[in-house]
């Protein structure tokens, strides 16, 4: 076997004969009907997110610069910071990385993959046993991918999205179970940077309705795929990769929240 001279020759299609289905762009689920307490929580998160962005920018930093700091060359596929970031108390975990530019959104520098360990948070949740599922016997070894946050070179959020099981090797749970976990996403660590960790935690709270809608859309897409491809190992199917996405719009989100809060 010869290795291609340049990685650019390793196009998606050369590594995977089946071009994955396009990512479903969901409509904004809106914030209708949310209780005031939830809206206030989201507004607090917006304040945190903006404060982190401002403080980082004033310091000549960004959420991207801080996960890459001191990590050597920024390489496609490598995970940053090295060894990932685990909060063993909250059971949450993340890393940042980039794909080849052709495999990312326009203007995307990379994305944060966000994970949680359900058993550490809500014991007794049952994985979704679809074709292609991988369910570790040890419940402590089960982790879920709640979503990813794409950012541009300046660390500004571009979109949030979900993926198929095989992409992150997660143990898939149904959306309704995972939505229960969203309130618990928090990285309470000072490394690699406290502001980055606060920002990520705040983003999940600020866009909780969108994360929830993306997970529901993910499930619907998986079921539709299974119906259209009888016999498919759907959770292992390379034709289904990034499943649902939503373009981040902080001004619209904060405006909608403040409308409801009469600010």
């Amino acid at each position, binding site marked *: 076997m010869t290795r291609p001279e340049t990685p650019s020759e390793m196009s998606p299609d050369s590594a995977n*004969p089946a071009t994955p289905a396009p990512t479903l762009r969901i409509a904004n689920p809106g914030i209708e009907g949310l209780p005031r307490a939830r809206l206030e929580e989201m507004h607090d998160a917006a304040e945190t997110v903006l404060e982190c962005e401002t403080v980082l920018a004033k310091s000549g930093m960004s959420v991207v610069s801080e996960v890459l700091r001191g990590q050597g060359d920024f390489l496609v596929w490598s995970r940053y910071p090295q060894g990932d970031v685990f909060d063993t108390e909250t059971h949450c975990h993340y890393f940042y990385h980039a794909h080849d530019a052709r495999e990312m959104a326009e203007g995307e520098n990379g994305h944060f993959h966000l994970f949680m360990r359900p058993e550490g948070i809500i014991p007794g949740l049952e994985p979704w046993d679809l074709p292609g599922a991988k369910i570790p016997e040890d419940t402590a070894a089960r982790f879920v991918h709640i979503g990813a946050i794409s950012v541009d070179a300046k660390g500004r959020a571009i979109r949030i999205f979900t993926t198929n099981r095989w992409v992150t090797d997660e143990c898939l749970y149904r959306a309704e179970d995972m939505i229960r976990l969203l309130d618990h996403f928090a990285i309470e660590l000072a490394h690699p940077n406290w502001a980055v960790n606060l920002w990520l935690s705040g983003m999940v709270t600020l866009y909780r309705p969108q994360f929830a809608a993306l997970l529901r859309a993910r499930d619907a897409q998986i079921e539709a795929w299974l119906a259209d491809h009888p016999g498919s190992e759907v959770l292992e199917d390379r034709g289904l990769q990034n499943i649902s996405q939503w373009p981040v719009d902080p001004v619209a989100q904060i405006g909608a929240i403040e409308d409801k809060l009469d600010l």
Partner: protein
Amino acid sequence: MKLHKKRKSLLRAAMVPVTAVAMSAAVPATSSAQATNPCAPAVTNPCAPANPCAPAAANPCAPAAANPCAPSAAKAADAGSDAAPMASGPYDTTVKATQAPYGDKMPPIVDNYLRATPYVGTGGFIDPTGIPMLKMLGFKTVVSLLKPDEGAPNEGDLVQKAGMNYIQISVPTKAPTEAQVAEFAKIVEDPANYPILLHCESSNRVGAMWALYRASKGVPNEIAIEEGRQVGLKTSREPAVREMLGMEPL
């Protein structure tokens, strides 16, 4: 007893992009290359979290996602509804009609932004990503003095998509023509268009248009020129404006 937090609006902070240092894109590394056999799973899954979990499946090979940067409809300001009070002209402050924002309320999305009247904002280049914000800030109409080859058609699409009126008056020469000034006068005197953002590339053409418009309304030429200079008229265009007004050269 639970204390209630005093909340303040975060919208302005959200609308002003922070100036962050841009990072370089990731560079490919052969060490992280995908499996060379296109039909076999890779040994490592680059998207799987490090440790403590099971070995991973094959490497993802995703197509580029759909463009997530398309502007979405922003929250409209409480402006422009039929029930809102209407000004009688560009200087009427006797009614509570939505005005063009003051400079300190404008995020840095319009170069050289100023207010010519309470209902007319002026400036140069508009950051395309900021066009939805203009709607949020209350603007109802964007009048562009750009030429088609300066991106006016694309800008018009973005403005209309954001829910504002777009009027293009191409001003390619040193000064707008009489017909163009007359067209602009109709626009600026129609309160249904308020608030208006009048812009070009630098605000030089804007200054020329404003000086000629004000002179057409009976403002003494010297004062009209001064008003034009105030909103961007430069010495490169002023001679043509002075000539149209029958004034002495600079």
